[in-house]
């Protein structure tokens, strides 16, 4: 049972703290530990299509998964050297704090309190999202403002739970929260009619909608009620590790901007464009600063491709979800995706 494992996880955290052995020695290098282990350990979703879910053969896929593979590729030159640890909303931060995972890459919203009081740091934004509501089409609702008095399903321990309360409090409306610890319970309750609406990040609603038996009978209301910048997080106190994870993110975004793809990356190494040459390590020693090989980005791109490719494969036109790039398009194309230059 997950509840038990979450409890055990907390317990091991407690005992580690109490017994004085600092569970993660902040000074020690995560990179060294990962290299010694021969594997990256990545905390991901328990099963959310498009972001992190095992397919029928047990292979993990999704945007968050690709990101983990990208980091593994940067370190080992091999995107398969990752172990995925599925975590629900409640377990995720403890798992990172205790050192059970090296990275948390699980559709997690970057907020100030999480960034400053949990002993962890967000390294960037992998997906710009916002919270929305899904309801039955038959209700004929036009906006979330019409949800007065409705029962609304939400997962505990999420930002969504807090935004939901804010949304109704600011409008002076009442509603009935129905809160579960696990996503399957939330979705099941909504599907069975325990709730009139289901609320979470819009990308997640789109993904969860496909799991309902009658997706056509459900619609998303147009309101986006919050900002949900989703991104990977690491433990505080290991600057080198933060840099590796952050620049992995920048590498896939920059690669898209420069037109470097999974299929052309080898050829692009001899490109005459100095920006591409620096990114791919043909020129300069940019990997060294991260403690990695200079062709670190080549490994990343051969393993998972650039941001746009990963997006289309997992969430966009190449996936059942068919989510438009929208806000997640490159800044050049009117979106928000922007990465500092390699130089």
């Amino acid at each position, binding site marked *: *049972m997950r*509840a038990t494992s979450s409890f055990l996880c*907390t*317990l091991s*955290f*407690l005992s580690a*703290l*109490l*017994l*004085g052995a*600092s*569970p*993660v020695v*902040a000074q020690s290098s995560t990179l060294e530990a990962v290299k010694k282990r021969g594997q990256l350990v990545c905390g991901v979703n328990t099963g959310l299509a498009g972001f992190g879910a095992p397919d029928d053969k047990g292979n993990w896929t999704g945007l968050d998964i690709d990101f983990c593979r990208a980091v593994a590729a940067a370190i080992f030159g091999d995107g398969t050297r990752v172990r995925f640890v599925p975590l629900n*909303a*409640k377990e995720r*931060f*403890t798992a990172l*704090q205790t050192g059970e995972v090296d990275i948390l890459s699980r559709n997690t919203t970057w907020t100030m*309190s*999480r960034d400053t*009081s*949990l*002993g962890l740091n967000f390294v960037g934004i992998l997906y710009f999202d916002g919270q929305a509501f899904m309801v039955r089409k038959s209700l004929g609702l036009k906006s979330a403002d*019409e*949800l*007065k*008095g*409705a*029962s609304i399903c939400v997962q*505990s*321990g999420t930002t969504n*739970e*807090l935004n*939901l*309360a*804010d949304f*109704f*409090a600011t409008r002076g409306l009442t*509603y*009935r*929260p*129905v*809160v*579960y*610890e696990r996503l399957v*319970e939330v979705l*099941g*309750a909504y599907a*069975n*009619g*325990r709730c*009139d609406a289901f609320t979470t990040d819009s990308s997640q609603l789109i993904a969860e909608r496909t799991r309902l038996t009658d997706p056509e009978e459900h619609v998303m209301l147009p309101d986006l009620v919050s900002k949900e910048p989703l991104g990977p997080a690491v*433990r*505080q*106190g290991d600057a080198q590790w933060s840099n590796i994870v952050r620049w992995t993110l920048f590498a896939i975004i920059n690669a898209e901007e420069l037109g470097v793809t999974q299929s052309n990356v080898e050829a692009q190494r001899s490109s005459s464009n100095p920006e591409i040459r620096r990114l791919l390590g043909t020129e300069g020693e940019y990997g060294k600063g991260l403690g990695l090989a200079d062709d670190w980005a080549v490994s990343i791109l051969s393993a998972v491709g650039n941001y746009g490719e990963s997006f289309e494969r997992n969430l966009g036109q190449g996936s059942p979800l068919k989510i438009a790039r929208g806000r997640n398009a490159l800044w050049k194309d009117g979106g928000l995706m922007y990465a500092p230059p390699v130089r």
Partner: protein
Amino acid sequence: MTGEGGKRWLARKTWIDAAYDPKMRALAFQALLALVLVFLFVEVVRNTAANLEKQNIASGFDFLARTAGFDISQTLVPYTSKSTYARAFFVGLSNTLLVAVLGIALATVLGFALGIARGSPNWLASRLALAYVEVVRNVPLLLQLLVWYVAVLRALPMPQGALALPGGAFLDTRGLHLPRLVVENGGGLVAAVIGLSLIGAAWLWRRRRARADEPADPVDVVGRGLVVLLPVLAVLLALKATLATPQLGRFNYEDGLSIEPEFLALLIGLSTYTAAFIAEIVRAGLDGVPKGQREAAAALGLSRRQALRFVILPQALRIIIPPLTNQYLNLTKNSSLAVAIGYPDLVSVFSGTVLNQTGQAVEVILITMAVYLAISLATALLMNWFNVRTAWAER
């Protein structure tokens, strides 16, 4: 020997004596152990704080005064998302206590009925009770909770097709909706009158118990009922109290008193499960009373019922109460399975949501453990007191 040296020698002698005195030695060892424990405790606390600090994880109990920011579906104490985490804690605690107290009451009634039925000469009744005990005792509680919650209560109709119950109540997949008593002002007065009349009824009951050898007098029973009902009715009439019946709104039944299905499932699941264990305890208790007592009661001309009520049960209670206490404690602790079906008990609200939103695992888990310990100790104390009382009354 000179006086001075003699005294010193004496003093040394007593010191050595003390070292050999087993009582003194035991005392010294205990003091030492206590010191070591205190030292360990202080060290653990210090170490934990230092470790948290080093990892940049917030610590301390200040968070309790901060705004919680989330809503809770069932609140016995006033609570909104603008309340503090401390308030959220009390909401969780009161929800746990509510389900535990009601669960204990239901499980006791059902358990005693089943236990008595088990020993009944009525073949069908005793077989049915046996079947109940064997089935319910051997299926894991979590599974039973899920059956009640998902298979039974979820199968109820949507609000639009709710089942209408007598008295203006409705039952649907969103729970049980009851008419609610609305008293404009003077709710306190109503509560006071209810309390006073209950005390009056209890007093009448005690007086009757003093004459327990007499058969129950129907007039007396009605009288007791009236003692409670009449004053309450009078006050309600005087205050122009009205009943708000549940009305179907756009999504849900509103205005009435809604009892959430999560609460219903947990209450039913916990009490039917624990009742099976209580039934076994009651049966064993009844069997434990010597056969001669039954025969003696029969010889005195007591009916089977009277023998049970006045001779067997009072003696059996002495055997029943200690293991019964265990069942009460089990039920209380089992109520934390609430988290599996979304009932906002202490564990799901406090060591679930609050822990996750604040990240203060150490503090939250410590408080939760302390609370369960306190509830268990209080229950045990109460039952010990009751145990002593029944033991005394029997002689």
